């Protein structure tokens, strides 16, 4: 079954940067299904901006691996969704194309950086979308918008075609209205790609099954620290108790390395980003640079004009963290801290099957509320550990606080994405019943 999909959403929340009005679709397991793609994932012949002015008018000559897989599965790619510039943000307020609004409350952020994808699903424009998650960028908007989002195990989904922000931390992942749809989408996008040397050939071929009898659920104390809003904490505990009622064993535990996690995350991602974003010089792509100027002048002007403040801040701090005399103190230490986080996870996974807790410490905050960068960074505290360790993590909606969605986060061992999905599915089915 092939054909054209007609897509004319009323996008009053600015979820899309580019809309494809009548995309083609083909036969396959996703035939005729509309899928939105975050705008940092390359789509041949469709503008791909990464939410930045510096890529306005960039039309990639190739598809990301996951996009070819979507097309092969017959999906209709209906548009490119809004995001924090280059993935740098937790609210989609850092987009060069204006913020996306949370469909549940238009005065609040949808979360970030995959805010456009999450909002589009929450608003009913599409049922499935691709996002990317470097420090929580799929799970945060999923939690804030009340939808499902999975960050796969690092290395399970090809990054070929994903505009790099922090290579050692990020994964493309599925977002959807339900766990089942997220699982279907994961099955499509996880086919092995030899072009990405960090991927492992372990395709995800799974139909979610409900049942947590005997599942050992670890709950680290650090996940319910003082920074977590009490209303959110209570809602998430309720969800954990639902799992307990269905036969799971709840075990409280500790993750001492949590105290380093956020610093390790930001040093790593800023350092890698400072290197990844240096290529945008206006010569091969992006708005043209003035060839009458001198190279360094032209390059600096282009970057000053076309990168937002947050991007420039992270580039500078990342450069600093890698620079001579500081590398040992920042970048090298951050990698050691990462290993400690990973060791902590693996130690816990000796005694538990999954870890659970809130996805975000609060409900979606108001637009403009977190003007101070550091306060914004602190919201990532619960999501970054999974990126540092490369483990799978899902956010599934578990009720509301002040009418705003709250997300339950479940994390698992490397390559146990199926276990994580099943736990989330069980919860979802459990509360439905």
């Amino acid at each position: 079954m092939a054909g054209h999909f007609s897509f004319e959403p009323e996008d009053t929340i600015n979820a899309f940067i580019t809309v494809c009005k009548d995309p083609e679709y083909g036969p396959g397991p996703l035939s005729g299904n509309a899928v939105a793609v975050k705008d940092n994932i390359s789509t041949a012949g469709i503008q791909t901006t990464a939410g930045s002015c510096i890529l306005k008018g960039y039309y990639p000559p190739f598809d990301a691996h996951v996009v070819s897989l979507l097309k092969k599965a017959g999906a209709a790619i209906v548009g490119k969704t809004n995001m924090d510039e280059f993935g740098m943000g937790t609210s989609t307020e850092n987009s060069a194309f204006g913020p996306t609004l949370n469909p549940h409350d238009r005065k609040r952020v949808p979360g970030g950086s995959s805010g456009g994808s999450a909002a589009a699903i929450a608003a009913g424009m599409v049922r499935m979308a691709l996002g990317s998650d470097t420090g929580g960028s799929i799970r945060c908007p999923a939690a804030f918008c009340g939808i499902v989002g999975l960050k796969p195990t690092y290395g399970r989904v090809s990054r070929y075609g994903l505009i790099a922000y922090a290579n050692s931390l990020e994964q493309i992942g599925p977002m959807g209205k339900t766990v089942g749809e997220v699982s279907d989408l994961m099955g499509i996008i996880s086919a092995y790609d030899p072009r990405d040397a960090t991927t492992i050939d372990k395709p995800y071929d799974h139909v979610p099954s409900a049942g947590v009898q005997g599942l050992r659920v670890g709950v680290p104390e650090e996940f319910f620290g003082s920074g977590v809003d009490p209303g959110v904490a209570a809602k998430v505990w309720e969800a954990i108790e639902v799992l307990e009622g269905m036969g799971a064993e709840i075990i409280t535990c500790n993750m001492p390395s949590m105290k380093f996690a956020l610093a390790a995350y930001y040093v790593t991602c800023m350092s890698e980003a400072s290197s990844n974003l240096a290529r945008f010089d206006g010569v091969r792509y992006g708005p043209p640079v003035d060839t009458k100027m001198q190279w360094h002048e032209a390059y600096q002007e282009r970057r000053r004009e076309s990168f937002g403040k947050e991007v420039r801040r992270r580039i500078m701090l990342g450069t600093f963290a890698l620079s001579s005399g500081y590398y040992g103190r920042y970048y090298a230490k951050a990698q050691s801290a990462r290993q400690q986080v990973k060791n902590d996870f693996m130690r816990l996974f000796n005694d538990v099957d999954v870890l659970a807790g809130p996805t975000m410490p609060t409900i979606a905050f108001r637009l403009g509320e977190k003007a101070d960068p550091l306060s914004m960074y602190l919201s990532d505290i619960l999501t970054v550990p999974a990126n540092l360790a490369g483990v799978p993590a899902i956010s599934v909606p578990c009720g509301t606080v002040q009418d705003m969605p709250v997300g339950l986060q479940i994390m698992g061992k490397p390559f146990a994405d199926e276990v994580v999905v099943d736990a989330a599915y069980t919860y979802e089915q459990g509360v439905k019943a």
Partner: protein
Amino acid sequence: MTMISQKDVEHIAELSDIGIVREELDEFTVQANKILDYFDILDLVEGGSGYVQERFNVLRDDIPVPSLSREDALKNAGATEDGFFKAPRVM
């Protein structure tokens, strides 16, 4: 405790070839110091050999694949001449 001055921020901007406007300098310096202050926690991390890599020797065979056509290669360029990309001169 790492304290960086405005001069340091200017130097970092120079090193990253990033371009920072005078008006932003003050704000950037204050925020950078706050953030670096937070990063100080890493000083408590003991030694360590970094993040352990678990995979090695991921290699590709020496078999050619057709390149992009020149047209596609130059498609997104701001300026081209005789099949070359045009770039500002380096002093």
